């Protein structure tokens, strides 16, 4: 994330947790102070937020966006009014931009607030040029978009030039001139492109603009090392003006190149600011840049949900209910998508397939179909083309439902096998080899692994035991049934939780096989734990620091078990191990349907939250996963035996190294 942020001047205020969105931005400070005062108003202005992930704008309502966009007042005429060069360059003119009593400030809140509602935290539509009075233009970044002209009204290409003109705002009397100059240019610009002025620019354009602005800023900053001198208050009058055009020209190519590259979708910070470029492993959904990019490529039409919890804005959340019918209607239309993959995607979306193993197997079998039907296009190599195809299918599946780690590992395996295909193989041989590899993966890593786990874990069940399990894990179910078949005498406590109530299905199946079961909800787990002798839990994944990433509620059960000194056994196949480290449940998770927690199924009278869903100060959070720290875990049962949770990185190391993927 650092790479994208580049530089930052003023720490931005970030609201974390629960707060009321759409608060009116704090009133901008009057600019009557010394010119080089920082402009916190900018920082506080929600409209001025850039794309840093830390700087999270208050949630916008897309539906509100659409409404407001049509009605937002066109700020351009007003800006030009402000920018009218005022003769004499006296303070008044300057103050004209800064005039506290003037409608600039008075207008800016109304201007910024509609702008703040337009586009999720996009560039601010309006801001006084004078707000750039800073010694370092580098500080402009986020405030820059508000830099004195209306971004929405200008196409990005044009804004490039305009923006470029504004790298440094010199405080002092020169500002009037500069801003006048700039304003004049702006005005001409805006007048020249009167048509586009009325049109709303797309988010992408605005983003591109912002990126270019930031880039230019940094480029300009980089170039003119004498900037502090220039931007200091007593600078020569003509110099800044003269330098500005030259800087403009210099910055322009840089800006265009930046913008161009940005349009390609590569987010490159200016050279000076670039830190070690580490591609973010997962898409962070609070970064509008990428969200937009992803949206353009998206197959599934999803609208982002409203009322998102601030802390989890980096995770995707979409309005439920509209995706499935939408996808279903498109079933026969989507050429690039293989029907098997499409079907699996629909099943994920609908929730028909759930559980790490089931999802992984379904996906792999769909890919088998893909491979069978695949034929290399002419002039292309099988490995590269197939890998690209698999990649596109994977993005589709991600849109339907974010990948689980087991699926991620399986995809990595598949891509690895594709890449390792010897070039001498014919196409049919290659396809056959891939299909058999997939079969072997499913067989060895999942089916046989489950058998081994069941054998190991059943040896830990003694007569007279009371075993507790949470939710519904397929491996744990197999263990219980196997131990029962071996004739061991034990009883089972199934702990369940809303809204999924997965334990009920498990309960039904166990009772049908004749096991003694007790069923309870998670709020009673501390009540029942004192009679439990062992806890068996499943996992979606186990991370390298021993943390178990599993269904939400697992951490709770493990913690209570630990408090009662009951050993906790995690049953997980080794292919689900991941070398990632996660310290909490926040940085990576999945958000489910918030309506599910608002309603109690089957109880029509329990609907207190129904009408409140649209209220602004109520946010519903439905997490799907949580992370259990390793202190609560006694043992992990894998197909490589029973290991302590500290040995997970050993398994990851040993077996990834040997290209363990068969």
């Amino acid at each position: 994330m650092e790479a994208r942020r580049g530089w930052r001047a003023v720490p931005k205020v970030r609201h974390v947790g629960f707060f009321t969105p759409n608060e009116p931005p704090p009133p901008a400070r009057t600019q009557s102070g010394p010119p080089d005062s920082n402009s916190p108003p900018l920082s506080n202005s929600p409209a001025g937020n850039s794309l840093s992930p830390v700087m999270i704008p208050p949630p916008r309502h897309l539906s509100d966006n659409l409404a407001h966009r049509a009605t937002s007042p066109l700020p351009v005429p007003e800006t030009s009014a402000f920018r009218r060069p005022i003769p004499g360059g006296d303070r008044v003119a300057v103050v004209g931009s800064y005039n506290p009593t003037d409608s600039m400030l008075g207008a800016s809140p109304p201007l910024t607030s509609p702008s703040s509602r337009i586009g999720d935290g996009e560039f601010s539509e309006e801001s006084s040029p004078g707000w750039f009075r800073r010694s370092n233009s580098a500080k402009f970044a986020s405030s820059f978009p508000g830099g004195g002209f209306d971004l929405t009204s200008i196409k990005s290409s044009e804004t490039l030039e305009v923006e470029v003109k504004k790298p440094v705002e010199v405080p002092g009397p020169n500002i009037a001139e500069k801003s006048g100059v700039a304003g004049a240019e702006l005005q001409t610009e805006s007048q020249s492109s009167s048509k586009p002025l009325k049109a709303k620019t797309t988010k992408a354009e605005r983003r591109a603009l912002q990126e270019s602005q930031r880039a230019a800023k940094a480029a300009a900053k980089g170039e003119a090392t004498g900037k502090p001198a220039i931007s200091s208050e007593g600078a020569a009058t003509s110099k800044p003006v003269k330098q500005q055009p030259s800087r403009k020209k210099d910055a322009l190519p840089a800006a265009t190149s930046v913008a161009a590259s940005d349009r390609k979708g590569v987010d490159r910070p200016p050279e000076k600011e670039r830190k070690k470029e580490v591609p973010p492993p997962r898409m962070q959904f609070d970064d509008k840049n990428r969200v937009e990019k992803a949206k353009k490529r998206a197959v599934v039409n999803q609208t982002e949900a409203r009322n998102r919890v601030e802390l989890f804005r980096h995770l995707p959340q979409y309005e439920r209910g509209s995706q499935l019918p939408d996808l279903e209607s498109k079933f026969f239309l989507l050429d690039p998508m293989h029907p098997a993959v499409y079907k699996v995607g629909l099943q994920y979306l609908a929730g028909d397939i759930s559980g790490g193993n089931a999802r992984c197997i379904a996906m792999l079998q769909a890919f088998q179909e893909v491979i069978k039907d695949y034929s290399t296009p002419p002039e292309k190599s099988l490995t590269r083309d197939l890998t690209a195809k698999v990649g596109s299918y994977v993005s589709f599946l991600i849109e339907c439902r974010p990948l689980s780690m087991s699926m991620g590992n399986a995809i990595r395996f598949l891509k690895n096998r594709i890449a390792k295909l010897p070039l001498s193989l014919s196409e049919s041989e290659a396809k056959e080899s891939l299909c058999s590899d997939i079969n072997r993966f499913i067989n060895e890593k999942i089916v046989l692994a489950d058998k081994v786990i069941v054998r190991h874990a059943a040896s830990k069940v003694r007569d007279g035991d009371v075993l507790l399990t949470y939710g519904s894990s397929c491996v744990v179910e197999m263990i219980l049934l196997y131990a029962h078949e071996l004739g061991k005498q034990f009883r089972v406590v199934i702990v369940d939780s809303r809204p999924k109530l997965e334990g009920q299905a498990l309960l039904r199946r166990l009772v049908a096989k004749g096991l003694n079961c007790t069923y309870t909800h998670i709020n009673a787990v501390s009540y029942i734990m004192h009679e439990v002798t062992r806890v068996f839990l499943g996992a979606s994944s186990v991370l390298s620091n021993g943390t178990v990433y599993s269904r939400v509620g697992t951490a709770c059960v493990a913690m209570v078990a630990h408090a009662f000194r009951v050993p906790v056994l995690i049953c997980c196949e080794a292919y689900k191990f991941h070398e990632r480290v996660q310290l909490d449940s926040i940085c990576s998770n999945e958000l489910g349907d918030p309506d599910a927690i608002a309603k109690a199924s089957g109880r029509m009278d329990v609907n207190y939250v129904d009408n409140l869903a649209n209220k602004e100060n109520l946010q519903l959070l439905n997490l799907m996963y949580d992370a259990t720290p390793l202190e609560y875990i006694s043992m992990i049962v894998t197909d490589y035996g029973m290991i302590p949770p500290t040995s997970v990185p050993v398994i990851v190391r040993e077996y990834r190294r040997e290209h363990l993927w068969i």
Partner: protein
Amino acid sequence: MADTLQNPNPNNISAYYQTRAAHHGVVTSDWLAQAQAAVGRHPDDVLPPEPEVKVAGKPFSVIHEFNNWRNQPDLAEAVAAIRALAAVIRNSEATTMMELEIELKKASDSLKSWDTTSISLTAGCDLFMRYVTRTSALEYEDFNSAKSRLIERAEKFGEISYKARRIIAMLSQDFIFDGCTILVHGFSRVVLEVLKTAAQNKKLFRVFCTEGRPDRTGLRLSNELAKLDVPVKLLIDSAVAYSMDEVDMVFVGADGVVESGGIINMMGTYQIALVAHSMDKPVYVAAESYKFARLYPLDQKDMAPALRPIDFGVPIPSKVEVETSARDYTPPQYLTLLFTDLGVLTPSVVSDELIQLYL
């Protein structure tokens, strides 16, 4: 001599602990006579360690060989087993690799079944099998060269195990500083080696020995240490917490090191480790690497029981039950470091080593 010596195990008494008691030599004569009768021969007999190769019948008995080695008090049981298994390879008449492996496996199984309660024996045999058969020498086409390669590895493993004690003693010297007080529990030959080496290096330290009922290991150990001119103080088992303030570190051996990094040792070790942990005293375990076992107990009762008759000196009414388990399990969180011939390890490394070896 029977081919497979029946485990003299009436009432599920652990032969391992009987052997240890025999080595201690501080047992009541009654008990010893009883043990001898069960075993069937005088324990002072030392049979010459030469392989008897006969023509007819089963020429070579691994148990026989094992007992030869076992009778030396200084030799650990597992090392004796390893040497016996090495001898099996040497004397094997197999002509193919598969045959040899099957023979080895049979010998190892019979050794293990001789005393199912001895963890180090089981672990030693398993590790030997893994170590020896894991070599790529098995891919040699010439059987004889492969066999000699196997013998080489087996001997090497035997040597390592034999020398393990000395390596451990060397490694632990850094941890014994002048003026320190060491609490020792149980009579571990490795710990004795450690203390001997420290005394020879002219370190000034004193030792607290727990009495170690019912085996009275403390008495034996204090004897040995007194010979080395090391100041020794005997504590009854209940006085451990009382004296823990003055103690700088706790040294114990291990019957077996389990996969979680915990140890299985003589009864009382868990107690002492708990007290030491609550008083922030380090607990050091001296264990050879062949004692790493693929067990994973979740609690005290999760192990195979090893019972040891306790002689209270006075008759006990028959209605009264006696807890006769000879060992307990100390979880890894109460242990500070393990001194092994592989180096000084933390408990979590045990699983690492086992995974690397086994998988």
